[in-house]
């Protein structure tokens, strides 16, 4: 990638920066990083595409109500649609094979409705894709925030206080780390089917989006909490912190002024990369019908809907997958750029298993 190339060969703009910064009143690390990021063409293009996708998904209600005039969440088996002056049923009699059964209408490629065709319940796939994108993006972002907050807190606590607390937290993370994510999600969802959990004031119902958010947010905590803990440990032994300790600075102040700003950088680097990973995980859970529950949609559930139509109407399963791939790709490219801008030497693993 062009992005990682910059950091490795250290091309001239990157090195010219400190010189320019010296002449002016010194630019802070955030400003330097931001300037470097803005200059990264690949990252900026990726960000632009990502923003376009988000905006497009936010237009979902507008598309469904004003352009396509469809109800994306209720089945429309007897619907009719006018294409080129000719009225056609949304669910047509099959013409291929033995002519038995029915096939939903294929893509019309016209924005007026059924742009990408219908699914087997006669619902507009494109409208569902936009709504589904909202759910996918929301789950990916919310679980990223949850995961980063949790793992930041755990990593800092374990690394800073050490001793028994560190021992307990580290073993706990070992346990979560070893838990196979899909099996954990399956266990949780089979237990929660038709019931709800009450955790103090929070009530999670079986169909709630919070369930996938919590599952995804928690399973990846060790992935981030471990590097954070390591970073805090090495910060604790770094000279500026030792100096602060030697000067008698109280430890809450060291934590706040010296440790947290450094950890914050690492956490920010993780944001786009974790979002990409969470997006893929969410789609997988929804594909297995243990994520977003019908009639709600997400890109994963639409791919699942498209499985039965794969050979007759492939667009139902293809389109949301392309949407996932593009979104995840932009997040990964942008994430590469952010990482290079903030911390050219860190070696994060992008993608997931």
């Amino acid at each position: 990638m062009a992005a990682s190339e910059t950091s490795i060969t250290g091309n001239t703009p990157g090195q010219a920066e400190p010189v320019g910064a010296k002449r002016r009143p010194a630019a802070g690390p955030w400003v330097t990083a931001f300037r470097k990021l803005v200059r990264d063409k690949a990252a900026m293009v990726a960000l632009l595409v990502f923003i376009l996708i988000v905006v497009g998904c936010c237009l979902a209600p507008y598309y469904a109500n004003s352009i396509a005039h469809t109800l994306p969440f209720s089945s429309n088996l007897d619907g009719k649609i006018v294409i080129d002056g000719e009225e056609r049923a949304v669910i047509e009699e099959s013409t291929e094979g033995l002519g038995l059964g029915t096939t939903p209408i294929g893509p019309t490629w016209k924005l007026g409705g059924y742009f990408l065709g219908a699914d087997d319940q006669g619902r507009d796939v494109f409208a569902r894709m936009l709504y589904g994108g909202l759910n996918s993006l929301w789950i990916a972002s919310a679980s990223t925030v949850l995961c980063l907050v949790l793992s930041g807190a755990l990593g800092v606590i374990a690394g800073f206080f050490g001793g028994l607390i560190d021992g307990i937290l580290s073993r706990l993370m070992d346990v979560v780390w070893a838990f196979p994510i899909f099996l954990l999600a399956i266990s949780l969802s089979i237990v929660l089917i038709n019931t709800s959990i009450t955790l103090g004031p929070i009530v999670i119902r079986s169909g709630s989006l919070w369930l996938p958010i919590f599952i995804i947010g928690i399973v990846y905590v060790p992935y981030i909490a471990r590097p954070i803990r390591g970073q805090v440990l090495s910060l604790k032994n770094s000279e500026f912190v030792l100096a602060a300790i030697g000067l008698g600075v109280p430890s809450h102040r060291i934590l706040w002024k010296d440790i947290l700003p450094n950890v914050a950088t690492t956490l920010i680097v993780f944001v786009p990369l974790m979002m990409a990973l969470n997006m893929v995980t969410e789609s997988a859970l929804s594909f297995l019908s243990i994520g977003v529950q019908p009639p709600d949609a997400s890109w994963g559930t639409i791919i699942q809907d498209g499985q039965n139509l794969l050979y007759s109407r492939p667009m139902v399963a293809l389109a949301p997958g392309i949407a996932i791939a593009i979104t995840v790709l932009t997040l990964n490219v942008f994430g590469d750029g952010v990482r290079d801008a903030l911390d050219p030497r860190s070696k994060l693993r992008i993608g997931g298993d």
Partner: protein
Amino acid sequence: MLNTLIRRLIQMIFVMFGISVIVFLIFFWTPGSDPAARIAGRNASPEVLAAVRHDFGFDRPLYVQYGLMMKKLLITFDLTSFQNRGQKVIPQLVDATPVTLSLVIGGAILWVIGGIVVGLAAAVTKGSVIDRGLMILGLIGISMPVFWLGSVLNLITQSRFHDTWMFSWVPALGYKPLLESPWEWFKTMLIPWISLAVLYIGLYGRVLRASLIEAGEEDYIRTARSKGLTETRVMLRHALRTSLITFVTLFGLDFGALVGGGALLTEVVFGLQGVGKLTYDSLKSLDLPVILASVIYASFFVVGANFVVDMAYAILDPRVRGR
């Protein structure tokens, strides 16, 4: 070395215990509904419910319930399904294991070869069009959901291009045992292997490239070059060797995770009756004992695999031992 081994062993046992407690709590202690009803499945008669209640000790203290669950799983191996009356769970899992292993081992061979080739090619041609192209392809591979890629491959090989010379050899979906006919087995597994391996080829190629380029700036590589060794020899014998340490660690973790349930998506898409598919089908039929068993065994396997990786790492890299 022995010290490390013992410490890691104790850690491993602790983690296994922790996992079993969490699974126990999820299955038997989540508020909401009667655990006996959950295990008995749909439309269970009062007699079955009573039998389950007695069998799993739901009228006794929690630690007895935990003990009974672990005894069924690890000592007597007699967990039975109530959804499919009297069906023993363990033999079902044993039957499914070779399918999962076939899938993951074959995929792993593909992705290790692919990852090394991609990583080496990109590192050698650093900065060129080939390097950029490979890295972009790798990133695309990482960004595609595996179950979607599998669907696309199915669409191409089973439907759209199945009648052409290219894919007419692809057999219908489903597993063919290796021992019955190795050739058929290979033909059915090839497409699933590819679909499983793409993500990891991208991942490992990128990791290996970064690690090779980093190694290229080390002193020992400069020494090797100034000794007059050929570039191939420097790359293969010196740089690649060190870089493979990271590679091996990653491989162990990913392999363990895939066998322990991660290959589920690929199994579902390609209709392979492996452990993951069995668990997924049990979710659909609300067959809780199967899920209970596969979750415990799979996570124990993952923990065991991580232990092996740790030990391999300690053998490969002596600096780790003291940690």
